[in-house]
């Protein structure tokens, strides 16, 4: 035992809460020196919080950090750099109109004069390039570099600051496959030189390809740490999404009617030229809840935004959407949120605080939001605030929104009650189609049950519901049919009765279950 060198990083009992949300709970982690360690988990599982603690952005509420066997206090990123930790962020922190050399030196200058630092850095960069295959022209402007090269500059910055431990946060999210391959070659080279690498990702393929060990996070907890060679994508997927079904929703069997929403060949390319949706086909019938499962960031948000009438600026769209048989425009003035509401689409957006509510508005003002053109809310040229308030009071009572005070600002309500304000507004309009994204994110258990019952009641009234959630439990409990989205397309369709979390987990990770189980799956 004494021959074993101290691990590069050891975390003991790290906990961190943001208000009522426990982002990290009692995390233990050991990363041996000279290995590549993967940390995998869904968005919101707490990976980024944990790494931010390691890099000094947050202070943990409890727990201990050991670097090279010695306890350290990491108060800020300077302390992290001194401890030999370097970080490559998902969104690069580079000065676009500086050269590579200037970016590398920035913040690590030797003295008041720039020239000696620059010439030292030039030599150092040449050495690093030769040693690790990190070739970048030191005099190129960063804004003229490809994304892959910009990432190399970030890695060079960390190495220039003598980082022994390199943390990469979702490094391949912005890379082409060829660039990702090159990155992996660089990482292997760094490992061979004795560097320790922590790779944060939600892509199983990368974990399997490059890591030595892998730790799985779920809902703020570290649920497993295993050797990569001793596990497989199916097991990891299951660990990621969780096996226990906590939720049970009592609902009668669905009696689907005529198709309400038909989507054919929907494609979307965003302003950066990344294809977010790669040909989506789906259909929802009256009296049916269609659940879309998937790890966040695989196109679900874009799908909801397009259906709701607010695709991100600069997006290019293609395909066909029909509501009740009538085609809906994809873009343009006839395709905004107001037109969608008029056509009969209600929408509980994924991000209620940024989109669904105006946090500084009162509850009653928010309950009219999006429907403020409704004839019953007008009185001549003015808005009929009394009518809006009366309407709000009714919804507050029927949805048991607490405190039952319509004059309170939305930001003063708890997450669950904020969500109830949005759900009350959208559901009580009795829309033909309800879009509902992450209906219970950050919502307490009592409100979850209430919101689920309302969704089922809307279905039973013969309405169509499109449910998007990263909570697999919720998808399984509520949906009448499940589609799994991965990388902008539909990976597969399952009925909740026959789907298993492992099976869905594989689809969510972009792996065909039959292949992952080596022929042992449902086929």
């Amino acid at each position, binding site marked *: 035992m004494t021959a074993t060198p101290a691990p590069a990083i050891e975390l003991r009992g790290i906990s961190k809460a943001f208000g009522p949300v426990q982002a990290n709970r009692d995390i233990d982690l050991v990363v041996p020196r000279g290995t590549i360690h993967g940390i995998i988990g869904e968005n919101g599982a707490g990976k980024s919080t944990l790494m931010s603690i390691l890099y000094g952005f947050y202070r943990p509420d409890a727990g201990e950090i050991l670097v090279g066997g010695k306890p350290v206090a990491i108060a800020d990123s300077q302390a992290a750099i001194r401890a030999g930790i370097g970080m490559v962020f998902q969104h690069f922190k580079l000065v676009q109109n500086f050269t590579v050399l200037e970016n590398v030196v920035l913040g690590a200058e030797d003295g008041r004069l720039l020239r000696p630092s620059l010439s030292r850095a030039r030599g150092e960069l040449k050495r690093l390039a030769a040693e690790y295959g990190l070739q970048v022209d030191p005099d190129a402007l960063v804004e003229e570099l490809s994304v892959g090269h910009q990432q190399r500059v970030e890695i060079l910055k960390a190495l220039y600051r003598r980082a022994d431990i390199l943390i990469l946060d979702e490094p391949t999210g912005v890379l082409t496959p060829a660039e990702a391959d090159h990155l992996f070659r660089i990482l292997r080279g760094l490992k061979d030189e004795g560097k320790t690498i922590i790779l944060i990702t939600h892509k199983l393929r990368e974990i399997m390809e490059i890591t030595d060990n892998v730790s799985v996070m779920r809902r703020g907890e570290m649920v497993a740490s295993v050797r990569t060679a001793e596990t497989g994508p199916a097991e990891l997927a299951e660990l990621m999404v969780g096996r226990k079904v906590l939720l049970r929703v009592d609902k009668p069997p669905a009696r689907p009617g005529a198709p309400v929403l038909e989507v054919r060949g929907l494609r979307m390319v965003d302003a950066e030229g990344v294809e977010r949706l790669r040909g989506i086909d789906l259909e929802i019938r009256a009296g049916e809840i269609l659940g879309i499962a998937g790890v966040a960031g695989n196109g679900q948000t874009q799908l909801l935004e397009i259906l*709701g*009438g*607010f695709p991100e600026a600069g997006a290019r769209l293609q395909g066909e959407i029909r509501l009740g048989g009538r085609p809906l425009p994809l873009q343009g*003035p006839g395709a*905004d*949120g*107001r*037109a*969608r*509401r008029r056509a009969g689409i209600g*929408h509980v*957006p994924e*991000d209620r605080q*940024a*989109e*669904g*509510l*105006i*946090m*500084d*508005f009162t509850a009653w*003002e928010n309950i*009219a*939001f*999006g429907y*403020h*053109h409704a004839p019953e809310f*007008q009185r001549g*040229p*003015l*808005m009929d*605030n009394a009518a809006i308030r009366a309407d709000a009071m009714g919804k507050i009572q029927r949805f048991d929104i607490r405190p039952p005070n319509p004059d309170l600002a939305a930001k*003063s309500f708890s997450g669950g009650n904020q969500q109830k304000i949005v759900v009350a507004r959208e559901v009580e309009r009795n829309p033909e189609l309800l879009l509902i994204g992450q209906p219970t994110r950050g919502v307490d258990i009592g409100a979850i049950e209430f919101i689920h019952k309302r969704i089922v009641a809307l279905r039973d009234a013969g309405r169509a519901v499109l449910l998007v959630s990263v909570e697999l439990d919720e998808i399984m409990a509520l949906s009448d049919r499940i589609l799994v989205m991965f990388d902008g397309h539909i990976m597969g369709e399952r009925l909740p009765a026959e789907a298993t979390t492992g099976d869905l987990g594989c689809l969510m990770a972009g792996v065909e279950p039959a292949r992952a189980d080596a022929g042992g799956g449902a086929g």
Partner: protein
Amino acid sequence: MERMPKWADVILTPLISLVLAFAISALVILAIGESPAEALKVMVQGALGSSYGWGFTLYYTTNFVFTGLAVMVAYHAGLFNIGGEGQAAMGGLGVALVVLALPWPHWALALPAAAMGAALFGALWALVPAWLQARRGSHIVITTIMFNFIAAAALNYMLVNVLRPVGSMDPASARFPEAAHLPKLSEMALGLGVEWGRNTPANVTFFLAIAACLLVWLLIWRTRLGYEIRAFGKSEPAALYAGISPVRITVLAMLVSGALAGLMAVNNVMGEAERLVLNAVEGAGFIGIAVALMGRNHPLGVLLAALLFGFLYQGGGELALWTSIPRELIVVIQALVILFTGALDNMVRMPLERLFAALRRKGA
């Protein structure tokens, strides 16, 4: 939960800021060897101590109400309109063109027409920056500042080359015809048999300013457009979700804002100078920013803050006249008021919030 009672938020905080600003102003006056008490007395006497003083104070107040409301409306849409100066200048051009175009038989006919000209020119001057912001993302702070300079140059050209009467050496328009002169508040008082504020510039536009306060309040808090402006100003993603067009709101809010700034010209060009001169706005566009900030972007607050700045303007003029305190010091006092009520607002607010929180804990 609310951090402190509304009265503390709306009244106590600006009041303490104001006292601090005056305290430091007093130190500055002491430092140049004058008596702060004497200075304050001259200012209060000169601005508020006689109907003559009030006649000037209310005139300045009227200017600041319009420019303050202009900044306020844009602010609710999340836009910072620094261009009140240029919009008010162009409003003056609108007034002059309308008044000089026709032989107006009576001021009551000329006033609405001139007001429309002023509002239209001010609004159009705000339209280009608004359009650039909405369509091209050009920052409205930068473009409205640039448009102030363009307005000054354009006005210069118009006065020298177009509006200047033949034979005149003065870069100013012809005098407005007698029939288009707006009644002064002093004349209106005389009509009621009261001797008030003789030879002061305060005029009927003051009532237009009060009406503008009321209309702006209705617009922002009682109409659908106001609702959409506020929603867009608080959260653009939410506005998009609700189907509120950012382009439409940006353009409409800036049109209203520019029109309000332009309306100031009814007061200073038509009501006071009775012709268009160079640099007629005299910085009122910028004072509007401070007025809106201090008035907490509410029309009633704007009215009160405009009154305060009207007092500072008039009192400052008196100070320069009757004491050896230089006029520049007035600018220092105004700057301190802006600094404390605007920029350093949180310096007073945060300790107050903590104080009220502590009081509540003790009470609970």
